[in-house]
């Protein structure tokens, strides 16, 4: 053991509560304490609460535990209150399970008990034994009535209560004491015993001549079993005091504390008997206790050997109990308990199975096949058992094949992927990722593969996984256009290659570059047998060359415009010849060209040209268009010129367009078209009486016929 260095904290002056021994306190102390123990490990604030006590020369010092145990800081010196100076020096100390109480044993055989805060003394007893005990422990239980200290010497156990009484037990064998939550366990070479204060409720019931409600109920039931009418007397007595509920509760509680199944049963039966006479009594406590006792009895069995008390069981919770069983590999029992107590699968059976499976895969003497089969048979598709976790375990133990077999059972494909990658089964990982539908996972595997494999293999792998391939294409489209091209090449996807070149052409800054990309596109479209696209692309190249030429010659600023926009621009520049050339070269439909020329001439108010144009041949777009475009450019005079050329079907509309109501009316009447007449009428104002009359007359006569 290391020597303790004790020094006072720089700012605090050590206090001496009793017997001033100022000298030497401020100096470093290097002597070893005679005994020591931790006081409050649960404290969260190490600086303010004492954590260690140690003894030296009749004084108890309190110090804080600093992270390194070897360097505590002396906080103060205190003398245990009430410990007479004649008691001698302390040779042994012990702190209770809850850290609340402290017991000190002196070399004169005095046992001092008190609070560990050294604020109060509980008792001081002379044990009349000066030998230092081998072990000294507190024997308490939560809400204990009689806190006591157990001291052990060779072959002797001494229980010292706070009431100054002592009890002696002889010990047969060499034993070890262990302090527990609610007692002291005495472990001998061949057996273990528990020394504890009898719970109050058990005392109440089993005390001789006890009149506690529980005791009476137990007696009542006993008489009832014997078919004696005394049962009724006892029951009446309880009921008169109105304590039947308490009686039942006492019996249930006492049963929980008992170890002997027969006693447990007797108590529970009594409780059950009492319950019959109660209305509105919740059976929950009763049922829970029954179940818990069954579990406790099971784990207390010799084969399992976990002698838990009910209090301990409650303290550690069922979860922990199951964990402990699992760590002892008592899987069947753990599962039985889970099922019996109906624990949700996730916390219960599945968890046990998971541990079982992880353990199973480590069995060296079984073949992969056998293990996989065994695991699958047991686990099936139990929810919450992750086959991939089990597989990971198998892989850790170097059983890759087994891991793969197990992964096959995994329903969540997403879970399989990381492990498969780790095991370098990348192809399998890829297909599992695809199966999962999670595209992000697919991307992840693809990126991984890309770095792992050479390009050829990588492409081949993708080829077998169309989903992955299209995702990778998407990735390349944004990130690696060049790779995209290679992918299309590999697949002989000429259509997409063509599109690829088209896209690329727009990135070229120079015309030559663009043209050569487009030529690439033409070649690919040809290979794809897409005649239309090839031709359209060639046309585009032709147009680009034409535009460049005119830009150079006339500074027309045409490059990049569509054919239509080019022709428009040419016309507005007055380059009609060139526009016509494009019209012929690119086989622009007459209709569109006529519209274009019509609008362009009208916009530039070249009315003469327009008239000439209208007469150049029969208009493919009719003449209503001429009327409307002229009107749109605010030239009624010109518009009127074309009205007569409009086909009869559209003539009314044309007249209306130029605002000639009379003409419209005549045309409509001539065609005897009711709808058209109505249309004209709707445009007539009050001042147009003549027209209105005319129309009304025509409609009337039309109606007669």
């Amino acid at each position, binding site marked *: 053991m290391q020597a303790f260095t004790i020094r006072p904290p720089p700012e605090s002056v050590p206090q001496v509560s009793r017997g001033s021994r100022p000298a030497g306190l401020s100096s470093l102390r290097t002597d070893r304490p005679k005994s020591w123990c931790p006081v409050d490990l649960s404290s969260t604030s190490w600086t303010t609460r004492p954590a260690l006590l140690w003894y030296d020369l009749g004084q108890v010092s309190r110090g804080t535990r600093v992270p390194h145990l070897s360097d505590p800081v002396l906080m103060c010196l205190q003398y245990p209150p009430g410990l007479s100076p004649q008691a001698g020096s302390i040779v042994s100390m012990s702190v209770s399970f809850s850290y609340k109480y402290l017991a000190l044993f002196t070399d004169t055989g005095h046992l001092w008990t008190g609070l560990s805060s050294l604020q109060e003394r509980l008792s001081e007893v002379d044990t009349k034994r000066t030998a230092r005990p081998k072990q000294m422990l507190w024997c308490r239980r939560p809400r204990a009535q009689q806190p006591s200290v157990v001291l052990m010497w060779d072959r002797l156990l001494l229980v010292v209560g706070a009431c100054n009484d002592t009890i002696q037990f002889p010990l047969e064998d060499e034993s070890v004491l262990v302090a527990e939550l609610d007692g002291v366990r005495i472990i001998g070479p061949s057996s273990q015993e528990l020394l504890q204060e009898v719970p109050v409720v058990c005392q109440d019931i089993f005390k001789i001549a006890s009149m506690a409600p529980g005791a009476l109920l137990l007696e009542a039931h006993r008489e009832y079993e014997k078919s004696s009418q005394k049962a009724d007397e006892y029951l009446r007595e309880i009921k008169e005091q109105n304590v039947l509920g308490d009686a039942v509760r006492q019996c249930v509680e006492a049963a929980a504390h008992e170890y002997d199944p027969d006693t447990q049963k007797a108590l529970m039966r009594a409780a059950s008997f009492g319950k019959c006479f109660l209305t509105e009594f919740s059976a929950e406590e009763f049922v829970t206790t029954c179940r818990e006792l069954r579990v406790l009895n099971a784990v207390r069995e010799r084969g399992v050997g976990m002698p838990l008390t009910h209090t301990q069981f409650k303290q550690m919770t069922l979860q922990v109990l199951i964990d402990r069983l699992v760590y002892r590999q008592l899987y069947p029992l753990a599962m039985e308990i889970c099922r019996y107590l109906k624990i949700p*699968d*996730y916390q219960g059976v*599945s968890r046990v199975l998971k541990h079982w499976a992880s353990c199973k895969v480590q069995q060296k003497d079984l073949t992969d096949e056998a293990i996989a089969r065994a695991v699958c048979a047991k686990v099936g*598709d139990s*929810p*919450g058992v992750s086959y991939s976790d089990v597989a990971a375990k198998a892989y850790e133990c170097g059983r890759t094949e087994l891991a793969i077999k197990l992964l096959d059972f995994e*329903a*969540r*494909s997403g879970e399989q992927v990381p492990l498969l990658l780790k095991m370098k089964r990348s192809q399998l990982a890829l297909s599992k990722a695809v199966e*999962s*539908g999670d*595209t*992000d*996972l697919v*991307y*992840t595997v693809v*990126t991984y593969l890309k770095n792992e494999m050479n390009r050829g293999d990588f492409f081949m792998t993708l080829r077998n996984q*169309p*989903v992955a391939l*299209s*995702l990778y*294409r*998407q*990735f390349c489209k*944004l*990130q690696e256009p060049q790779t995209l091209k290679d992918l299309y090449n590999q697949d002989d996807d000429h*259509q997409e290659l063509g*599109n690829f070149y*088209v*896209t690329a*052409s*727009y*990135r*070229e*800054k*120079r*015309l030559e*570059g663009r043209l050569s990309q487009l030529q690439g596109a033409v070649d690919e479209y040809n290979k794809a047998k897409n005649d*239309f*696209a090839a031709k*359209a*692309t060639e*046309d*585009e190249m032709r*147009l680009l060359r034409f535009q460049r030429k005119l830009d150079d010659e006339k500074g027309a600023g045409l*490059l*990049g*415009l*569509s*054919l*239509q*926009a080019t022709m428009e621009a040419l016309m507005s520049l007055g380059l009609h010849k060139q526009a016509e050339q494009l019209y012929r070269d*690119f086989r*622009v*439909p007459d*209709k*569109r060209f006529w*519209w*274009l020329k019509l609008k362009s001439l009208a916009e530039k108010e070249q009315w003469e040209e327009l008239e000439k144009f209208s007469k150049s041949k029969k208009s493919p*777009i009719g003449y209503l268009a001429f009327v409307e475009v002229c009107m749109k450019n605010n030239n009624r005079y010109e518009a009127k010129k074309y009205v007569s050329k409009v086909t009869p079907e559209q003539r009314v509309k044309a007249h209306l367009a130029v605002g000639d109501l009379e003409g419209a009316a005549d045309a409509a009447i001539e065609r005897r078209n009711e709808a058209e007449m109505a249309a004209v009428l709707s445009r007539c104002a009050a001042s147009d009486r003549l027209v209105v009359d005319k129309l009304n007359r025509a409609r009337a006569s039309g109606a007669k016929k």
Partner: protein
Amino acid sequence: MAAHLSYGRVNLNILREAARKELREFLDKCAGSKAIVWDEYLTGPFGLIAQYSLLKEHEVEKMFTLKNGRLPSADVKNIIFFVRPRLELMDIIADNIFSEDKHHPARDFHILFVPRRSMLCEQRLKEQGVLGSFVNIDEYILDLIPFDGDLLSMEYESAFRECYLENDQTSLYHTAKGLMTLQALYGTIPQIFGKGDCARHVANMMLRMKREFAGTQNQILPVFDTLLLLDRNVDLLTPLATQLTYEGLIDEIYGINNGYVKLPPEKFAQKKQGEGSKDLPTEPKKLQLNSAEELYAEIRDKNFNAVGAALSKKAKIISAAFEERHNAKTVGEIKQFVSQLPHMQAARSSLANHTSVAELIKDITTSEAFFDNLTVEQEFMTGVDTDKVNTYIEDCVAQKDPLIKILRLVCMQSVCNNGLKQKVLDYYKREILQTYGYEHILTLSNLEKAGLLKPQTGSRNNYPTIRKTLKLWMEDANEQNPNDISYVYSGYAPLSIRLTQVLARPGWRSIEEVLKMLPGPHFEERQQLPSGLHKKRQQGENRTTLVFFLGGVTYAEIAALRFLSQMEDSGMEYIIATTKLINGTNWIKSLMDRPESQTP
């Protein structure tokens, strides 16, 4: 505040409360003041779970948007990144951390992944050398967000694209997980039906996950009787059509985002006397749209043509209510009148708002362009001339109408014709490329991959058979007092909803032939319930079906399902869930590819 979530058959507020609880727990994990750095996309969906006040109660003092560079200064102890698990976002986070001021006292960093943490992202953070900077890396499982008393959405924008273009089933995994969460809260759903490949995949994952979680037996009495999983690609037609319900039109025209719509402010100007018209508000008017608003709940699902009448009826009721004050004579009567005032005033302002919205919409629906477009749509849906180049589409291209409009129409024609003749298809494609630019070749390729555009193959056009068997076109749709779901598209009954309707009665066995024509398998699965949880149905008690649209659902479809729920003899109530609330426009947009041009 979220009371409307609990009005319905299923109390969806439970889900919201669960989400809020989890959020609070995470926030409390990071003790002390905090700032949140938001992945911008998440703010909308989060707004439906928790307002700023909740965050503030948990010491969130600042909020930033995630972007490159140094984080704005904030005197807080914790910085929390709320992000989706995306690699590009990880790079931004890494950049943020590297740019931290070294002299400043160090702050604690945390990441909250929504909806799930990702090994890939963590790996990326590790590669960037910042993984160690995080005190907490956590996930916030937010799959299904309650939008209304009968509506859940994951707001997973790219779900359709990922599933059908990129073969990336991440969204389906989240869906399955979300459904597991839902079952944990509302009990195991005993019956699962589905149609489509994605539906099959989700069902498989769910059954698998159930096996994985075996043991944690769900002891909740099932709220849902049936789950119906529907792939969007089973019914590509419906989202392409213009929705004609009030809510559908608001979405088509202005776009509803996370329950809010932004409207042009002019019509909402406060008309106060003495103020000139100069102070017109310039900020868009933001309106929240959900069933918490009584009037909106009443009119949202009506055909727009019936909204005007409903509004004027409501106006009469409200002014009559205000007139009551003249009849209030005794103090008691006056007191009662006053106590109702706040409610009446709210009703009045709600009426004013919706009258303005209806006017805005009416301006558009009465336009010729809208009418022409609708005519063509209806021609396609009834199978008129779907095999020829359509002149209206041609004209629209020539007029350079918005590309998405063109794409919607062309796709619709293709779907209604079970593919277009190669010549017709090529013609449209060429028109589009020449007019809108060659770069759209990628978009066209996507649409073809998704099956929205396709060349006609040898097989016969089976759309007419489907249309007839499922009665997709109803000649005499009654818009005012509907008796069939076809009112939501003024004639067209959404295929997806017909499937749902037939499933409820008489069952899918009656339409085996049609089901075979639609893509993907159809199936039925049963999930074992723990004994004792089998529902004993009361006489006349409705069954509840959760319809999950994988790849998006439109407001008109939702309206149709609500209509079915309300039909007296349907015996079925529907709760709707989806990966994303969509309309034709944002749906097509999500399928477009636009290479970023470096103009040479």
